[in-house]
């Protein structure tokens, strides 16, 4: 049988707690995880967590994430409540303009 190992990671998300409705997005082959922080489906803060070191960097202006893909180079494409949203997390979290069909707009 396969052995599972669990390790809890306290994330210092100063502006708000992690949104339980938001899907986490993991970086391809990398240590980074992206999570939206609670914003009642409105635009709000989000966090990029380095799970190897435990450090967290807070970004601005993102809605909860339904789906997404974060590439090894730190660029990503997310499906959010406002549309398809390009992001980059290296060297710091940045959100591009949301376009197209989001979850909120069908």
């Amino acid at each position: 049988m396969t052995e599972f190992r669990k390790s809890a990671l306290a994330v210092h998300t100063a502006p708000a707690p992690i949104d339980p409705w938001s899907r986490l997005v993991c970086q391809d082959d990398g240590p980074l995880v992206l999570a939206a922080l609670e914003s009642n489906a409105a635009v709000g803060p989000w966090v990029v967590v380095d799970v190897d070191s435990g450090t967290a960097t807070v970004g601005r202006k993102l809605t909860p994430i339904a789906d997404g893909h974060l590439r090894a180079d730190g660029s990503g494409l997310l499906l959010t409540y406002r549309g398809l949203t390009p992001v980059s997390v290296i060297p710091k979290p940045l959100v591009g303009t949301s376009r197209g069909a989001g979850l909120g707009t069908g």
Partner: protein
Amino acid sequence: MLDLGSGVAVVSRWFRPTSKLINTVTGEVLRRLPAEPPFFLLPTATGRARLWALGSGAVFTLDERTWHTVSREEAPRGLAACRTPQGTVAVLGMVDIGHDESFGHALVRDVAPGGLLHKLRSPYAGLRLALLDDDLTEVASDKASWLWQILQDPDVRGAVRLTADNAGRVVLTTAQGLALVDSPSLRLLGQHRTSAWPVPWRRRPRAIYWSGERELTVLAWA
């Protein structure tokens, strides 16, 4: 959402018979595709995209220049698929959404041993795990009744996701946790319950889930 590369993604919602191909840079809707999610990209010749719409049970071959449909073929219906070195592993079959499962029944299903599980009627009874070749012909399949125990609500489609961990295992995630499946044999290797939907890394034997307002838990396996 499935990123098709070259700045195009297919975006869709459950139970909608039409999906949209969207330019991810401009947001322009390139076309509507009469196909239901989830989508999975199959290998094909360059200049073409072969898109398996598991919800509709069809494979669309699209021209990557114009995004017009070149051909549409019948294919199995299912809930999720992923690529492994041995071929494509998929959860095939449909959930019986008309079956209104009582709370008590769900509870029994949740704790029942394998032998009894087969005697229970379940909205998930039609599901199976399968290994497919590039023509989507089934090479192997398994009833995987353990899968029922980690499914929660038949109305929630997109209830299962599959990822390969690049070490011969397929990672199956649902709102209830994670199961590891040996990819050539489709045998269950291990199960782990989580409080929230775990998200596995691509090509890595680990996953993460939300375990508290300000806490994440990393789950690793070997």
